[in-house]
């Protein structure tokens, strides 16, 4: 009896032990070391030298950071807005356009394909389209239109957003379509009886049922657009100039191009705090 009681109380902890040990074998070193790094400076020939909060102070006065922050918010904000709006429009359009359920489901699956690929692969795929001699420009030449320098400083950030929209509109589409499909048809029949216009039907019937999916999509896309720098790395490497440099890519450059470990660590910690807050909002929202 005593032994049974013991297993009952300690079992949950044993269930978490393997995961906890594996995770902390890495995180237990990485997190403290990141914090340590952020108070030091990497001086060639001398190694790490303690500099206090200099790196954090540098963050506040680094003019490049402000440009990067602006681009980061522009990139992820605009991308999120376009993806969620397009996803919602397409999710509702599929339901309106195709009455046969099997065909509708197949089209829906087809539209989800881009989201199964990785950021890096999508970037490489899009390179074939947007490179100066690539397919899109060759189409433009056939149509006698001026070619566009897709990866030039004017267009590059837009091009990256377009490739992200191509890949990730599927996510809001998936979530909103699922929410839309769960609305009982009776609601729409009732709306018909009441002679509601399409817009009124959307506002009264559809929107209350899908708004949760819309909100989750916004949160997820905004977080994940800031997590990955793969597309920027592969398509433009932050250039030309600073045209596509986001804060994430700047951290990467500071760490691996300029060898400024301390500054990169300080920027990383600031990023982790911001992402932590966003994750907390997401987590509260999901519960």
């Amino acid at each position, binding site marked *: 009896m005593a032994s049974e009681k013991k297993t009952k109380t300690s079992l949950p902890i044993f269930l978490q032990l393997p*995961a906890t040990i*594996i995770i902390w074998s890495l995180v237990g070193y990485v997190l403290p070391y990141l914090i340590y790094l952020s108070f030091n400076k990497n001086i060639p020939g001398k190694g790490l030298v303690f500099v206090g909060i200099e790196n954090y102070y540098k963050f506040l006065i680094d003019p490049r950071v402000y440009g990067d922050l602006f681009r980061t918010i522009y990139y992820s904000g605009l991308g999120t807005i376009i993806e969620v709006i397009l996803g919602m429009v397409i999710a509702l*359009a599929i339901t309106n356009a195709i009455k046969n359920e099997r065909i509708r489901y197949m089209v829906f699956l087809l539209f989800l394909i*881009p989201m*199964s690929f990785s950021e890096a692969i999508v970037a*490489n795929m899009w390179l*074939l389209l947007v490179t100066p001699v690539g397919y899109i420009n060759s189409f433009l030449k056939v149509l006698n239109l001026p070619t566009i320098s897709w990866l030039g400083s004017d267009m590059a950030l837009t091009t990256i957003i377009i490739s992200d929209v191509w890949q990730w509109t599927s996510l809001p589409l998936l979530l909103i379509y699922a929410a839309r499909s769960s609305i009982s048809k009776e609601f729409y029949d009732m709306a018909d009886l009441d002679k509601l216009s399409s817009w009124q039907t959307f506002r009264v019937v559809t929107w209350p049922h899908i708004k949760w999916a819309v909100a989750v999509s916004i949160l997820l896309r905004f977080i994940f657009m800031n997590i990955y720098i793969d597309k920027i790395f592969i398509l433009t490497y932050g250039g030309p100039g600073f045209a596509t440099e986001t804060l994430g890519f700047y951290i990467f450059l500071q760490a691996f191009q300029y060898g400024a470990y301390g500054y990169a660590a300080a920027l990383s910690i600031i990023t982790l705090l911001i*992402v932590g807050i966003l994750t907390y909002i997401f987590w509260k929202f999901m519960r």
Partner: protein
Amino acid sequence: MNLVRIISIIIVIIWGIFSISPLYIVVISGFKELNDVFTVPPKLIPFIDFQPSLEAYYKVFYTEIGQTFITSLVIAIAATVITLPVVIFSAYGFSRFPRAAMNDPRSFFILLTLRMTPPFAVVLPILLYWSSLGLIDTYPALIWTYTVFSIPLGVWILKGFIDSIPGRLEDAARVDGYNFASTFIKFVLPLMASGLAATIALVWLFLWNEFLFALKIAGGNVVTYTVKLPQLRHAERIMWNVYGAMGTISIIPPMIIFLAFRRYITKLYLAR
């Protein structure tokens, strides 16, 4: 046919073309000879515009490029195998004992933050960690790093599946005298088999696709295909058809996984 329906059909068609055309272009580029890849006007229809060739696929499979696919495969499978039992235990705990220590929602939140951690923010200390152990650019380093980062993903997905299995069954089994292990093996595991398969598939896919860790934790001796692909660009004459071929090979597994687990797609992305 009202106006809304007509607009809807137009939207679906336009989005369909926009979704499919990059895929089509990547696939046909892989079957072109290098001189046919970029032309004005573009050559789009095989056998009519251009003669399909396996040149690019020969280049992929008879050079070190093919090896990078094997490397990706091995690393992703190894990390998934290590992750799997760990994830089963952890997800089960989070699902069934939300009041116990280390299983409470707060612990789950900590796990979730790891899932949302941007790789670029932690790749530097991880690199220094493996260098200090002398393991940088080896299989174990990348596999272990992948394991750590796929545990949160796996737990997050699998917990959603376990949550939807009613716990009453396990209580009944326990009353009947089964101990925890046999309850788990006889009743819980079979019920979550499909969820488990979906979790394995998505974790594996996440690792198969990973780029930044593969680039910095490995990238010299151990080269995954995601790292190799962008390097092709540094060649004197860029082999764009190899881009197409590698792109085509790399998108086959995700498409198969997506179609096989289409019933669970929402669950895989939302864990509910």
